[in-house]
């Protein structure tokens, strides 16, 4: 069973993908934040570019920082962005 998730992108992740947010149906075999990045990277050139170096991408589930190994089960909104740089 697939999972419906809202995705949000910020800074150069947003620029590379070309949109600030989208709703996706994530396949059932994608269970962690890291796997979600790998799956997203396979969706096209712009995604491949955005996620070409997953180590520098940070993620948040429902506005809380999470690690690549965190499960995405139950997530409403997942965001991807570069490390924050301060104001």
């Amino acid at each position, binding site marked *: 069973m697939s999972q419906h998730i809202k995705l949000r992108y910020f800074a150069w992740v947003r620029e590379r993908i070309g949109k600030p947010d989208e709703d996706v149906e994530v396949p059932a075999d994608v269970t962690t934040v890291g796997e979600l990045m790998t799956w997203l990277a396979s969706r096209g050139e712009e995604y491949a570019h955005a996620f070409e170096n997953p180590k520098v991408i940070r993620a948040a589930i429902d*506005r809380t920082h999470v690690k690549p190994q965190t499960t995405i089960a139950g997530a409403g909104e997942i965001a991807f962005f570069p490390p924050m740089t301060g*104001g």
Partner: protein
Amino acid sequence: MSTITNVRIQNEPFDTAAEAAAITRGRTDAGAVVTFTGICRGDENGVPIASLTLEHYPGMAEAEIERHVAEAAERWPLIGVTVIHRFGRILPGDDIMMVVTVSSHRAAAFEAADFLMDYLKTRAPFWKQVEKTDGKIWVEAKATDDQAAGRWATSGKHQAAE
């Protein structure tokens, strides 16, 4: 001690003096007001810049700053703290952010303001883009800023002695 806290992320300019006055007005237990205002400079490491653009994650950014403000209010006896951070395009000479701390004693007000500024300048939940003559670039996190913020993790010497 219950501390009046106020965190705002906004596109509009702010008035640091008005924010300080809003905390101290009508009370006689405030002995020290510290304000820090961060201004957009016209250069980055000697290279002229045309503008800064700050992006944030609405909702998450406020919550992160509020958590640090609450930590400051735990560590120091503060009457009030206000933090305002702007987002959007900011020109050289314009204000970017401000911190106001109010306490009965100056050490608490100073150290809390210093602590919050370290956090805001290094780990505030913003992405910063700098516009130079040859285009716009995203700024990367700086190691030296992280070291400054790291001061607060271990030391007891910055705790107010009063």
